[in-house]
């Protein structure tokens, strides 16, 4: 992990208010694993003050770039969306722990909701290269918020979409699609990233079907490296073992995750 000075190679809108930034980042590109993230300083002027944590969405090892995909929904992403080609920024990474690989030959199902899709794309493309069958389920509010086919295609052999208003794919929630997958030729491993409520629902469905599930969690984050102890997630205490104490009630998403076994997370609000 280093604080790499990276250059913006491209930064384009790929869906409604969704942007893809390609960053020349040879150190991070050579090391980032699916599920890991970077923490980017979008402004050196102090506004916004904190960095923006973003999952790695794709890498090109030979060219030395990484891609991050983000939704313009706050002050940091707003500044980043206006950052042009050639601009240099500090980018801390790779951070956190990535996805744990499925057993050999496993059928995998990746579930992404809204801005939770990016880590699934990197993970799906790696799984595909390793010859795992990958089904990608994508949920979004509407057609405009869905990523284009060409971004999803490298990540899965089967892509299924759901949108809240039915404007693209199946009308309803991405969890409806997962329910169908679990009822049929069920996957051996599920990987999920999206809004908290969606991940809670996915974790519950997987638990009922006894399918292992890993979730990539999100929480408001400052440092990204474990020093501020801000991005807390409540963990199941009974699975902490004898060493468990009140101190371990909350994990730090940035260093203990962001990927967790769904059974370790205490989902009740």
């Amino acid at each position: 992990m280093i604080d790499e000075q990276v250059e913006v190679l491209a930064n384009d809108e790929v869906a409604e208010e969704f942007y893809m930034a390609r960053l020349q980042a040879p150190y991070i590109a050579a090391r980032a694993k699916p599920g890991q993230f970077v923490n980017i300083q979008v402004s050196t002027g102090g506004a916004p003050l904190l960095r923006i944590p973003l999952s790695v969405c794709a890498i090109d090892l030979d060219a030395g770039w990484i891609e991050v995909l983000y939704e313009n929904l706050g002050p940091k992403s707003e500044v980043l969306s206006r950052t042009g080609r050639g601009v240099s920024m500090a980018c801390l990474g790779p951070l956190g722990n990535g996805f744990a690989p499925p057993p050999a030959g496993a059928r995998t199902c990746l579930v992404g909701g809204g801005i939770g899709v990016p880590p699934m794309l990197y993970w799906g493309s790696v799984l595909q290269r390793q010859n795992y069958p990958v089904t990608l389920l994508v949920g979004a509010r509407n057609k405009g918020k869905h990523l284009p086919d060409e971004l999803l295609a490298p990540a899965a052999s089967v892509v299924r979409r759901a949108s809240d208003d039915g404007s693209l794919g199946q009308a309803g929630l991405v969890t409806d699609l997962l329910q169908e997958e679990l009822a049929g030729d069920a996957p051996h491993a599920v990987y999920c990233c999206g809004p908290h409520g969606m991940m809670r629902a996915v974790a519950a469905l997987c638990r009922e079907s006894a399918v292992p599930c890993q979730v990539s969690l999100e929480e408001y984050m400052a440092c990204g490296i474990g020093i501020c102890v801000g991005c807390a997630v409540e963990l199941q205490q009974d699975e902490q073992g004898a060493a468990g104490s009140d101190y371990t009630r909350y994990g730090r998403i940035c260093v203990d995750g962001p990927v967790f076994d769904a059974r370790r997370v205490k989902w009740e609000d």
Partner: protein
Amino acid sequence: MADLKVDFAGVPLQNPVLLASGTCNYGQELLPLTDFSRLGGLVTKTITPEPRGGNPPQRIIETAGGMLNAIGLQNPGLEDFVGEKWAFLAGLQTQVVVNIAGFSVDEFALTAARLEELPGIAALEVNISCPNVEAGGDNFATRPETAAAVIAAVKRNSRRPIIAKLTPNVTDITEIARAVVDAGADAVSLINTLVGMAIDVNSQRPILGNITGGLSGPAVKPVALAMVWKVAQAVSVPIMGIGGIATARDALEFIIAGASAVQVGTANFVNPNAGVEVVDGIQAHCDEHGIDQLASLVGSLQT
């Protein structure tokens, strides 16, 4: 080359820049990203006698020019610190100040006594001012009597220099500063965070799980600076200046206002090497301006 050395209440510092409590955890995470041997020191995240889980999320939110936090003193507890965390800290080539807190005067005293067993601790910073935990409905640093009672008890149980960390959330911080110095504090550090809050207008709910939090970052610097200047005139012990320091210029302002040393806090979350860059900047400033001894700048404010 200007001499940046400082004697801070008997603790020799190679330069006046430390990392602030709660912004560098117990050091380990920063090891790949900064060079501790270049710093004056670090102040550990607060240790309480028992382990603490901390507050429910959301714990942080950025606000204009700063951030709110309500971590709630999540820490592994005194015994884990002594048995596990200290071994790493003891190996760092920098001064380590251990920050302690408790929920009663006895807890502070007990913690200080136990830490006597660890040679190598440079000083204790006594956190009587965390805004994010309840201690009898009030924190100790908001009243001179309770602040003094804690410091006196810690002083009785420790031979190390005692630094009292003060809160800005009071009517007159000089009154508290005088009280802790009278009770035996060898130094004071200020300021801890300012109580603040943020609200989600759509849900009409507080953004932080703890409802209120502590404001830090550049936004609080002018407040901190004024308090350091006032306290510098009220007490004769050394002052550790804290509050929104991100650059050498910020640090120099505190030093000129009367701080003998400074702590870099929130800036570490933005730039994990901020402390070392502040040191380099102070060195450059002194060299450019023909300042031979940084110590000569302390409290040099011309009014």
